[in-house]
């Protein structure tokens, strides 16, 4: 049996996972940095990752019940992300790769999110709505890459939720707290906020400004939270629906941290149902950043004939777009399981 290790360290999460060639996630360990107040300070997060790395790696091997000599390859999430955080993960992966002779694969973090969701769904070729703190991409596979068919023209949807949360005094991450408040705010009714869909693209900055303004004018937080979430997600659902019609894909998945939101998943499932295609909502644990998505992609790349990286040459790449990476190696017909 062959095994692949995956390391994720692009932002707040340091994650290590081990996946077997039959598609079982044997271990998925992580340590998530929570800032004492406000947003993430990249250097603080990097320090956290450095401190927890040895422990998280050990835990993953203990959980999986294998040793270093059983490992075939290692994947590292080398971008996009926060430079100082990326450097920790990339250094660790390079060291492990050279010391143990594991085959090294640089994994595009955004592709990892889409791939883990797709592999868990069992769908071969879905439209993916990838939503997180830093990314809002509606993508579909075409000519060996994930092409971006819709995206934000300004800020990411997770950034919209986090920024609003910070502005009204909620702690990071704001998404889950807003989701809870929104449930209470529904009965108060929707406040009209800027709704901006441009083709298959969306724009959230006007919505953020307006929501903050409405809250500061004395409106109840629950009601603003409902209106903000409802408007933002309706925009995403509409953009996704347009992309679905345009690309003619036969299934839909959500991916990324914001895919943990059940209201968003509900909306996307209704869009899919309207067009007679199945929808898969990524389980919460696999929606946020994790090592399993990196291990799974490393396995796919290795199986798909990608040449391993030279451990002394792989560098962190803070700016990397989903469509920058070739995904010709995509494995279909494999349904990933969690042990």
């Amino acid at each position: 049996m062959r095994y692949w290790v995956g390391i994720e360290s692009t932002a707040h999460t340091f994650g290590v996972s081990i996946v077997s060639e039959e598609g079982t996630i044997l271990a998925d360990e992580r340590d998530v940095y929570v800032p004492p107040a406000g947003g993430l300070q990249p250097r603080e997060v990097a320090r956290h990752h450095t401190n927890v790395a040895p422990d998280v790696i050990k835990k993953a091997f203990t959980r999986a019940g294998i040793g270093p000599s059983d490992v075939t390859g290692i994947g590292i999430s080398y971008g996009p992300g926060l430079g100082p955080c990326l450097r920790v993960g990339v250094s660790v992966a390079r060291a492990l790769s050279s010391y143990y002779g594991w085959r090294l694969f640089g994994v595009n973090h955004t592709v990892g999110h889409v791939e883990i969701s797709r592999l868990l769904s069992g769908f071969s070729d879905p439209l993916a709505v990838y939503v997180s703190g830093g990314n809002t991409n509606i993508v579909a596979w075409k000519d060996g890459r994930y092409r971006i068919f819709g995206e934000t023209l300004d800020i990411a949807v997770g950034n919209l939720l986090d920024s609003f949360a910070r502005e009204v005094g909620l702690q990071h991450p704001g998404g889950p707290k807003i989701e809870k408040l929104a449930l209470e705010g529904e009965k108060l009714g929707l406040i009209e906020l800027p709704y901006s869909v441009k083709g298959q693209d969306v724009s959230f900055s006007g919505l953020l400004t307006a929501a903050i303004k409405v809250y500061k004018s004395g409106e109840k937080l629950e009601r603003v939270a409902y209106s903000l979430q409802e408007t933002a997600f309706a925009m995403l659902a509409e953009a996704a629906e347009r992309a679905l019609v345009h690309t003619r894909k036969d299934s839909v998945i959500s991916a990324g941290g914001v895919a943990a939101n059940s209201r968003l998943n509900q909306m996307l499932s209704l869009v899919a149902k309207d067009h007679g295609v199945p929808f898969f909502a990524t389980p919460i644990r696999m929606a946020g950043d994790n090592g399993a998505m990196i291990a799974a992609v490393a396995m796919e790349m290795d199986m798909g004939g990608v040449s391993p990286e030279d451990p002394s040459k792989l560098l962190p790449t803070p700016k990397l777009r989903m469509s920058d990476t070739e995904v010709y190696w995509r494995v279909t017909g494999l349904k990933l399981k969690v042990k």
Partner: protein
Amino acid sequence: MEGHGAEAEGEIKMAVLDFFVEESLVAKGAEAELWSGTMLGMPVVIKRRISKAYRDPALDFKLRVNRTFEEGRLISKAYMAGVSVPAPLFIDPINFMIVEDYVKGELLRDVVERKGLMHSVGVEVAKMHGAGIVHGDLTTSNVLITSEDKPVIIDFGLGAFSNDVEDLGVDVLLMKKSLEANVPAKAGALYDEFMKGYREVAGAASEEVYKRAEEIERRGRYFQERAID
């Protein structure tokens, strides 16, 4: 016309049946159904915005009425300005319905590489912008090509009245991205051809639009990479 919502929609449909005949569902788009039929014997396309179960009912109603009303105004203005669009015949926002002249043609996305086509698309888009109209969803799926290779711009559902270079830039960028998504290998050349046609009509103003489109594209990238995940 009293009352809004599903019941009223059903009643009105019954009431206008003699005037319109809906023959068959031509296409189910993202936000509307397109029916072919006749209006007083004339072949027409009936566009009806459908309710979306996924969104808040108040938001759903508002979006459907406003967009039908706006689209009616936009297509009328474009038609009168001589832009190649289907002739608007009947506009009924409260019933989320627009009736247009039936245009026979292929989708641009299916014939996009045919010689000279993107050039004429550029010409029509520049005429539309010159009339103070932005399309808002300018993709290769929203241009029909007639048997005489004449482009007809359809679906003004996300359009707006605007002369703002930012909005014009978004239109141009949407077309560029649509080409990149559909014909990755030839998108560059086709986009150049499109801009050549655009320039012929828009003249000096086209340079600013072209530059703004590039700027918006860059901004989208940087914003997502700067943000904290």
